[in-house]
């Protein structure tokens, strides 16, 4: 099922048959993935597909009912989130989750408290985001959404992770801001990071990803390199249509409810959301 991928060998991060429950709901139902060093691994899917749950479980914020998470060959399934962070798995959580009463610099300092050795320092983050150093003494609550997202990325980077988990970077941001943030990705990757990202904005994910996995209702519906999959396949996997029967049937999943950002409700439209987000 796995397409041959460059850099084959030991995966840096591996998830085996993960099952996660939110109460009665089976949010993830046997999802597996293998992320190799240097990859940009994108997980796409509609609202409620289980993407964020997957990332949060990898970071340790949810406990799986079944399955295993391996990092660098070691079983991390029972390890506490803070231990995973210090081992080299950093996450930029959905909604930024900055420390609102702390300044920009203090947020980065907290991120650097238990940092591993590596290329990223607070100064280097200031170089990456040019505006940041002159606003270092401001509280993050006073920043715009895009600026907050940049601080959240910086806070994760200064820990010098080996795997960076990015949860819905585009959420609630204007398209042009999203473009600008994603434009930073090559510079971040150049320092040897591996990225596992979750994105509802499919076109954005396709642009940056070296490997793609599509989730639907907690199952994997498609996996492969972006160049190997056709838009029709992505569309079918995203909406859960049987492959090839176009848009004859309605989307089987109805979870496009209140969770998403305004304008993301492209699910019923029958096309792959091209990324024209409202905000």
């Amino acid at each position: 099922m796995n397409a041959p991928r460059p850099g084959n060998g030991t995966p840096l991060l591996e998830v085996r048959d993960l099952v996660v429950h939110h109460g009665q709901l089976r949010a993830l139902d046997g999802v597996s993935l293998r992320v190799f060093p240097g990859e940009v691994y994108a997980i796409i899917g509609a609202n409620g597909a289980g993407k964020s749950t997957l990332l949060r479980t990898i970071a340790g914020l949810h406990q799986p009912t079944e399955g295993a998470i391996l990092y660098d060959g070691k079983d991390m399934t029972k390890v506490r989130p803070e231990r995973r962070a210090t081992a080299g798995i950093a996450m930029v959580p959905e909604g930024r989750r900055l420390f609102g009463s702390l300044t920009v610099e203090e947020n980065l300092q907290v991120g650097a408290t238990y940092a591993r050795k590596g290329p990223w320092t607070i100064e280097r983050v200031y170089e990456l985001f040019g505006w940041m150093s002159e606003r270092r003494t401001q509280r993050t609550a006073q920043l715009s959404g895009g600026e907050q997202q940049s601080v959240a990325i910086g806070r994760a980077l200064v820990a010098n992770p080996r795997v960076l988990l990015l949860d819905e970077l585009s959420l609630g941001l204007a398209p042009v801001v999203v473009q600008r943030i994603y434009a930073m990705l090559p510079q971040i990757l150049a320092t040897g990071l591996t990225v596992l990202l979750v994105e509802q904005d499919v076109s954005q994910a396709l642009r940056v990803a070296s490997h793609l996995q599509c989730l639907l209702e907690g199952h994997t519906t498609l996996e492969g390199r972006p160049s190997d999959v056709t838009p029709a396949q992505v569309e079918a996997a995203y909406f859960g249509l049987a492959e090839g029967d176009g848009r004859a049937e309605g989307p089987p999943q109805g979870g496009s409810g209140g969770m998403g950002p305004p304008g993301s409700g492209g699910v019923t439209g029958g096309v792959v959301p091209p990324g024209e987000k409202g905000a």
Partner: protein
Amino acid sequence: MAWVNAIIQGILTGGLYALFACGLSLMFGVMKVVNLAHGDLAILGGYIALGVIAVTHVPVLWSVVIVVPIMAALGYVMQRTMIQASLDRSVLTTLLVTFGLSVVIENGLLQFVNANSHSLGVGDSIITKSFSIGSQIQIAYLLVLIFAVAVVVLLGLQYFLSSSRYGRMIRAVADDREAAQLSGVDYRHVFGIAAAIAFGTVALAGIAYGMYSQFAPTTGTDTILLFAFAAVVIGGLGSLWGTLLGGVVLGVAQQIGAQINISYEVLAGYIVLLAVLVFRPQGLTARKAES
């Protein structure tokens, strides 16, 4: 002049109240634990000081050096075990658990010590004396010392929280526990440190109270807990200077009440508390309600 005296005495007593209240405020601000045993812990600190003095014969002031670390260590251990276990269930459980702790401490002291009142005698030193301004104002050095200690403790705590590595982590964990974990911060350890500080300051307050007045096993819940709560509520949660202001306002209100009629002392304090709750429920210094 009698009124001026009342206000001065009130301000100085307020320092003691602030010393009681800052640990309560810290524990609520960081881990959302309303520590109903806070007053009893102060009294426990006083009794430990009595024991330390009886055994080692050190002067009262030196007992602080022994008692505060003991109580701080106790705070860390209790937070990591019992209080954390109750927090993992729900915030409401912590109310039950700290209430239970309060009962256990109070009755433990009644059982194993006795119900008599004690005080920490400072002997014949300068701090037992007082000085006068004019004919009506008489100020005890001890109260001045306690007020100064309160200000120094609050200043130190403020500096620790704003400038140190652990202080930064305490604020980060108070803001967003999960995000702190994602940065590698073990919030349980940070909670333990906050509890150690709270227990240490309340032990200091308990010793100060023992030097200033008399205490018995029931003093913790009867008096100290209520005054500490009142100081926190009047000043506004989450602000150390608010806590000092709250303590001072409470102290001044009590002294003015006592000036009118000695039986109004406690009542006047609670009238001010009630007024604050009605007209400015977020407290005198707090910003607008935070989430």
